[in-house]
């Protein structure tokens, strides 16, 4: 039973990292209609800058403080130099250009930081485990990640529902021609939204730094899952990103955790291991397919 609770927490924590990534991507996709494959690169930039500053200054908080503006500025520069040229082009052109950006950023980190993966440790004040229930120990750092994710979701909700800029962004997501006609500086809005999205990706990156290897190309492994999340949640919808990320995080983790044991009841162990391994890596795609059959536009479509 404790194991189930622990795995639920693991799923929640994974889902929250995915949410930070997909919140930015879904806005960019939903408002600007741009497929941005390079979103993972900003995750990587956040992790690299965060790791470097943390090691240099010895403070994890300074690392976060440096990673956020770094990935936001990189994002806005990319938007101005590259993406502005692509808004009126086909999706294929956007995919090609942003795929090129992935290679550019991977090579750039290799030039600046070398091929050696960077080291980043959990800060001392977040290391160790907390006993949540008798017998259930959970790493403090992962709890902190969950906390930060919930905080970010709240802040985003406040921005979108309570501020003028949030209103404009929502309006942009449902009808961007109209909001332009109403006199909103759509160019500036796009740049801001893009910067906000990449800053969130950078935050996800720097928070993943102590758990994962900070290495060139680390963004690609999470990028595919991020796309699954926004397709499940509905493109352009923050609510959808929350729901999609939690669903994907939980389904993926629970699949990996309990399918092998479940299959061992049914088959002999060798067959069970390989079947469970294959099925658990497919689980989220099966989930995506099922949801798309039921709701072709995702759970919470922005343009309904």
């Amino acid at each position, binding site marked *: 039973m404790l194991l189930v609770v622990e795995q639920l927490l693991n799923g929640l924590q994974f889902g929250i990292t995915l949410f930070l990534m997909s919140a930015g991507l879904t806005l960019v996709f939903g408002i600007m209609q741009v497929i941005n494959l390079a979103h993972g690169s900003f995750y990587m930039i956040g992790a690299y800058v965060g790791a470097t500053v943390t090691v240099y200054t010895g403070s994890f908080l300074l690392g976060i403080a440096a990673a956020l503006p770094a990935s936001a500025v990189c994002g806005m520069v990319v938007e101005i130099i590259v993406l502005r040229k692509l808004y009126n082009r086909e999706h294929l052109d956007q995919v090609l250009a942003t795929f090129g950006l992935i290679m550019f950023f991977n090579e750039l980190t290799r030039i600046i930081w070398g091929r050696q993966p960077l080291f980043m440790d959990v800060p001392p004040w977040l290391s160790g485990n907390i006993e949540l229930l008798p017998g259930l120990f959970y*790493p403090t750092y*992962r709890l902190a990640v969950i906390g930060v994710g919930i905080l970010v979701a709240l802040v985003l909700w406040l921005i979108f529902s309570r501020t003028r800029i949030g209103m404009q962004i929502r309006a942009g997501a449902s009808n961007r021609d109209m909001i332009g006609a109403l006199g909103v500086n759509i160019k500036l809005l796009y740049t801001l939204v893009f910067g906000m999205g990449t800053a969130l990706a950078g935050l996800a990156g720097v928070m993943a730094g102590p758990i*994962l*290897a900070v290495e060139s190309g680390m963004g690609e492994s999470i990028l595919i899952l991020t796309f699954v999340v926004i397709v499940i949640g509905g493109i352009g919808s923050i609510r959808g990103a929350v729901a999609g990320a939690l669903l994907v995080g939980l389904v993926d983790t629970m699949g990996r955790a309990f399918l092998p044991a479940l299959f061992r009841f049914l088959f002999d162990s060798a067959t069970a291991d390989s079947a469970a391994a294959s099925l658990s890596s497919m689980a989220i795609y099966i989930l995506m397919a099922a949801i798309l059959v039921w709701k072709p536009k995702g759970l919470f479509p922005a343009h309904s």
Partner: protein
Amino acid sequence: MKKIGLTLLLLFTIVQLSTAATLKIGMVTTLSTKAGYLGEDIRDGFALAIEQGAGTLGGIPVELMVEDDGRKPEKGKQIAERFIKKEKAHILTGIVFSNVAMAVVPKVVRQNVVYLSTNAAPSKLAGKGCNPNYFSVSYQNDNLDEVVGQYVTEAGHKTAYLIAPNYPAGKDHLAGFKRFYTGKIVGEVYTKLGQSDYAAEIAALRAAKPEAVFFFLPGGMGINFLKQYAQAGLSKEIPVYGPAFSFDERILKAVGPAALGVKNGSQWTHDLDNAANVEFVKAYQEKYGRMPTLYAAQGYDTARLIGSALKAVKGNIEDLDAFKAELKKADFASVRGNFSFGVNQHPVQDVYIREVIETENGGYTNKTVKKVFSNHIDAYAAECKM
């Protein structure tokens, strides 16, 4: 006067050209992608040996051509083809990954070209698929798992839990461990290739309460696993073991204290006490400013093996059979000390268990703990009919 000058100049150029007819060695390796540092170390180790010979290997001037395969079998094939057809190279080397090797090696060795492996040595090329033109200077893939299997058995751990990525090499490496482990296997988990978060697997592992954990997770996957394993507080409770691939000096730098004390299997460590190794470790650190890894040692050994054979045939590799016969003698001072080739032209060598320790300047490295196998022969040698 002018004419004589011109003639002299012409003669001089001809002499220059003929001495400059160097022997070309083609290196297909992985320099880009996350795994790029593996190829970088192999290349640097190899280049160090050439530099020590002042541009020669065994006194024969050589030119090393290096190309990046990007970890893609297709690309590796194209590069090898170009080295052979266009550059007329008779010696190829350098591949890091087994899937690239499987695409390149069988095709290359059919074309009167010698291939020497600096790393990847899949079972298929060691057993029935062995070939007189193929030499593995590194190991046979399973060796580093077999040694851990033997050691974990000797250490008296009665139950073990195994983790590897769900792809052919993952299953091979676990099979290598199981070949020598006699205890009970309480869990055998195959994870997604390239997976970054292992929280679910670690929680399941904790619930299974094994006495030892064995994992094969190369590259970033291993960094992630080790860090998360330590963060879950398990490294103090259940000892973890693995092959050297997750414990080279460059990975250790990224894992940090989480790897301290972990025992791993390898055929080489920087502290092996033989003259060739002492000289290699010192020269490598002086030239590149970092600790050599086992990949660098494999690159260096390969270059020096080629040097020994080139010297014996005086640089004439038109007679490829004579060259191969010299290669097979392995008449060179390996940084591993004991080294010879078995019937399938894979190493017969000692394999060790080493432990991750902290260095004086705050870095991390390995120290040799125990020689587990002496003159170890791989499991596939008997299937090789040459």
